[in-house]
């Protein structure tokens, strides 16, 4: 790496660190609240990217994993008195187990069956959350979730009840989750996932077991998504069936499609931009979803690789030029 490249990289890293810490430094609760939302969506979009972008399975069940993680951790804290730090991991595990069962059943048939079953799962979760009143309190939800307590060396137990502090927690989780996913997709596992997506038969002929790798991707994705849900609702202090809103699915899809399926930083970037921009610019809510729809159509028709695909195309052109 050249000296200029190193300097640029150092600049980029420090800018990123500053941007991440911004919500902690800026006054007021709004930057932190927005930061929580951005960090959460970065994890959600990356979870979908792992399943759709890398593995090629279009999953509508991400919102189900999110909501299951949310309900599980809320119920464990409220009814069983667990600490949130254990409960949100349990939420992720429950989501992952459910994801594995459903994926195993549907992937035996085909990846198309998986898409349709994942859609049903999301809707079924919504119905269960509304109607298993004795467990979920139905449409009334579980309000008044207590603020978690964090043991800080030297300070003792600190209540995480301010968005600023909560942002710190969510940010730490998001960094760990994204780092883990980054490591996964840049390991042999990620290579195998892409191979399965690109050409399943060829991958099999190389000894790759598609089902096993797909299950692994879905399991990890559901785990992280469920954990994100388990944390997020403690920021809201309430969990109700609207956690399964189909709107979240649409938003995640837009993030992955515009960022570029299979492009790690493309999707993270798209998640940040799409969760921040409409809010910061106060975009007219009436037409936001119409615009999302148009973006989706335009992206699928004219721009199928998203930002990540565009970068890959440039790389290909560079190679063509270099070799000709």
């Amino acid at each position, binding site marked *: 790496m050249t000296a200029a490249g190193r300097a640029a990289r150092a600049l980029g890293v420090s800018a990123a660190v500053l941007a991440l810490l911004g919500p902690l430094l800026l006054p007021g609760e709004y930057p932190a*609240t*927005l930061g929580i939302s951005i960090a959460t969506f970065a994890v959600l979009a990356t979870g979908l990217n792992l399943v759709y972008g890398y593995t090629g399975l279009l999953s509508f069940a991400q919102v189900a994993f999110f909501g299951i993680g949310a309900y599980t951790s809320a119920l464990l804290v409220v009814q069983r008195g667990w600490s949130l730090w254990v409960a949100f991991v349990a939420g992720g595990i429950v989501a992952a187990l459910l994801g594995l069962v459903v994926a195993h059943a549907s992937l035996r048939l085909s990846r198309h069956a998986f898409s349709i079953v994942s859609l049903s799962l999301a809707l079924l979760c919504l119905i269960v959350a509304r109607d298993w*009143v004795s467990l979920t309190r139905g449409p*009334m939800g579980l*309000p008044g979730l207590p603020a978690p307590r964090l043991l800080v060396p030297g300070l003792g137990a600190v209540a995480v009840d301010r968005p600023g502090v909560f942002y710190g927690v969510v940010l730490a989780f998001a960094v760990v989750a994204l780092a883990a996913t980054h490591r996964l997709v840049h390991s042999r596992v990620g290579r195998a996932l892409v191979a399965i997506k690109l050409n399943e038969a060829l991958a099999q002929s190389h000894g790759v077991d598609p089902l096993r790798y797909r299950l692994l991707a879905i399991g990890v994705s559901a785990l992280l998504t469920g954990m994100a849900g388990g944390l997020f609702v403690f920021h*809201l*202090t309430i969990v109700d069936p609207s956690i399964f809103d189909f709107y979240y699915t649409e938003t995640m899809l837009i993030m992955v499609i515009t960022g570029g399926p299979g492009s790690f930083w493309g999707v993270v970037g798209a998640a940040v931009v799409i969760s921040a921009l*409409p809010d910061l610019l106060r975009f007219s809510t009436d037409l936001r979803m119409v615009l999302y729809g148009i973006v989706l159509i*335009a992206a699928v028709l004219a721009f199928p690789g998203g930002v990540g695909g565009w970068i890959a195309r440039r790389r290909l052109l560079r190679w063509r030029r270099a070799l000709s």
Partner: protein
Amino acid sequence: MGRIDRRLPIALLLVWLGAVTPAGAQEPIHIGSSIPITGGVAFFGQHSRWGTELAIAEANAAGGVLGRKIEVNFQDNRCNPAEAVKSVTQMLGEKKYVAMLDGLCSGVVLAIMPLIERAQIPLVVANASATAVAEKSGAGGNKWTFKVNPTDASLAEAMVAWLAKEGKIANIAFLGEDTDFGRSGMLGFQSALGRRGQKLASTDFYQQGTADFTAVFTKLRAQKPASLALYAIAADFQNLIRQYHSFGVGIPLTGRVLSDQIPKEILASGALDGTSSVQPYTPEVETAGNKAFVAAFQKMHGNPPNLLSYMSYETTRVLLDAIKRAGKADPAAIRDALEKTKLSSLLGDEIEFDKNNLAHKNAVILTIKNGQIVVLGLSRT
């Protein structure tokens, strides 16, 4: 292709930027409102907004409050706590809003209550009906939350009290939508009946957006309850009433029958005679204030008001009145003024908050006789 690709994001950015509205030059009093503008219950948000807009327009036409214009910023919450927390925190962060209005959905209100308490900005709830909102407010709870509309429990109690007087509380079946509205209506009915030694004969919930009710009507007809308590709103209510009529179900209705939304033909047919209903509001109430309100609303929005628009209208009036009495656009002063509210409603009763910051407005008891809606009276909730 490549050129289009590069231009697209820029074009989108311009669209977004174009939507940003410049701030006004003079300094009005700012109020925030969090309601569903998109999503499944956008219809209710629309009516809440219309009601508030009418009250604000009237106040501004009369010279504003404390000599300043009032401006309301309506933010969408999709009836989803996550969206509400984001947009309300954003509004609170700007520090220019002196109060918040509505929230509309109970889950949303419960989620934003801690936010406004921390920011020390009063929240006046117009339409969220969950009993929990009032239980957590006022003395010993959230001192910044006020609720103008009656709770589900108190409305159901008013209805059952009237039914008991008429000797009609035995063998009531329940049919309601599967939301906090229907669920807490059922709980309200159940406990009100329980206090009188009765219970619901059966309970059924349907998913919001259900179009066809033939099956449940068939079941109810076979079951033959003495009356059917209905908790339905919007499109579902219209579907229900039409199918109730065309299948000739014939079981007297009670509960929250939206008298103003029954098609004229069905009403005139007499099929609904014997129906009783409890509403926080109905346009048919014959007071001068209400008649003027209905006319003004129709003129401004081209639609008749419903109970949501009415409640938002009254709630906005309560808030404006408190700002006037506070004498300054200061959240804490407004909160104190809200506590001392004593304002006549359009229905002729006094709006006052109890120790839980809950107003006990009158509920309207209606019945249908000879194809006509008859207001039987107002009952304290």
